[in-house]
């Protein structure tokens, strides 16, 4: 069977339940010793790890990027590679990036011009984020042994207070920094098979500056953060709710979605809530700090349509309930994704 017990299937990389199960059963097993007490280590399966060094925290993260197509409306694999890692650090609370690494595995026959284009993107994104790329690696594999180009980036940054994705408490407001589903839809639309024509661009961007603005305004009032990549808002909320052991209620009408994304989603029968974002964050915020955080986000060019989309409750811990405006339903976690690779 596809992706059965003894074979890894595409769903294991899709960011949903299957991937988490694989990580828990295979990757975590035997990898003892996470960070020192109080740190955020492998077992937390957070966006990164936080290790205490003196009176500061060293935050470390790594990501591999396998997106197809490599160039898509709104960005490319280079921009994605930098943004993905910078954003993982940012939502851990580490917005001043000390350094990035960047490794490439290139398929034999890959176009040199395309490679130069990807590098130009990497450099531009790195400058935009203030995140220098200090070291890397380059390998070439034979034609057909790898699909085009695979990028891996790792990032390190210091911060004074790491923000986990497990810190939500009942009563906390949930704020999203902008429109959701843009990246996922852009990638889908870029695939010839769907023949969709519209302004569907990825939102891929480093948001460390935006998160900095929120942290400056909200301080300790920001209890949890996550960036909703694969599996979209739905996956991210599920993880946060499960790890924090709170219930979440989302008001569907309050979730910002671009009209083009909603139209494409309607046409394809896909829920924007499960589509990836690559330039957004979800914040859990104490009620008293929510207004200040929203104001700070909206003052930033990348946060203009930031919105409060829901709240945490002590009822139904781990479950995410969606108020549709007509009724209510459970927002189920996406499982394996039959859709093309999107990040």
């Amino acid at each position, binding site marked *: 069977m596809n992706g059965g017990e003894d074979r890894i299937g595409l769903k294991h990389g899709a960011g949903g339940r299957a991937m988490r199960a694989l990580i828990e059963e295979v990757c975590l097993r035997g990898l003892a010793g996470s960070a020192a007490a109080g740190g955020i280590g492998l077992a937390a399966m957070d966006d990164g790890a936080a290790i205490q060094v003196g009176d500061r925290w060293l935050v470390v993260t790594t990501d591999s990027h396998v997106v197809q197509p490599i160039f898509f409306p709104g960005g490319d694999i280079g921009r994605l590679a930098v943004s993905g890692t910078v954003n993982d650090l940012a939502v851990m609370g580490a917005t001043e990036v000390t350094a990035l690494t960047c490794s490439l595995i290139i398929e034999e026959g890959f176009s040199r011009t395309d490679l130069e284009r990807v590098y130009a993107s990497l450099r531009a994104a790195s400058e935009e984020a203030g995140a220098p790329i200090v070291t890397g690696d380059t390998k070439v594999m034979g034609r057909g042994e790898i699909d085009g180009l695979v990028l891996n980036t790792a990032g390190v940054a210091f911060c004074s207070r790491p923000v986990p994705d497990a810190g939500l408490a009942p009563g906390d407001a949930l704020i999203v920094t902008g429109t959701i589903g843009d990246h996922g839809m852009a990638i889908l*639309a870029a695939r010839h098979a769907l*023949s*969709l*024509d*519209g*302004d*569907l661009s990825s939102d891929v961007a480093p948001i460390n500056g935006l998160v900095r603005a929120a942290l400056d305004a909200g301080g300790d009032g920001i209890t949890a953060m996550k960036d909703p990549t694969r599996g979209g808002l739905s996956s991210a909320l599920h993880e946060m709710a499960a790890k924090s052991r709170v219930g979440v209620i989302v008001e569907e*009408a309050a979730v910002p*979605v*671009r*009209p*083009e994304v*909603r*139209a*494409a989603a*309607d*046409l*394809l*029968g896909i829920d924007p809530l499960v589509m990836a974002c690559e330039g957004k964050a979800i914040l859990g915020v104490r009620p008293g700090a929510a207004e200040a955080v929203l104001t700070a986000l909206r003052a930033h060019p990348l946060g203009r349509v930031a919105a409060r989309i829901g709240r945490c409750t002590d009822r139904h811990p781990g479950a995410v309930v969606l108020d549709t*405006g007509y009724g209510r339903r459970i927002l189920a976690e996406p499982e394996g994704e039959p859709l093309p690779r999107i990040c």
Partner: protein
Amino acid sequence: MCLGVPGKVVAIDGNCATVDFWGVRRQVLLDVVDEPVAVGDYVLNHVGYAIRRIPESEIGETLALFEELLAQDGSGDLMAADVRAEIAGTGAGPDDQS
């Protein structure tokens, strides 16, 4: 399989129409639509074919149908007074989801 989704015809080339679905466009074939279609018409699309030309007058008529449904029923007004007032107060436009 995709739902039947309504959209607006923005261009026609032979039996192929470009249809705008609120911001994304797609090609839709006109081979089996029930009436001749012109630019500006609304059509219902199902797996790449237009299966109905939706007369614009039907939009208003459908809303009227809904009103009638809620207003009558033999046993009196089904719509609570506060809801009726709300509709009257807002000018009765459906919600803008964007």
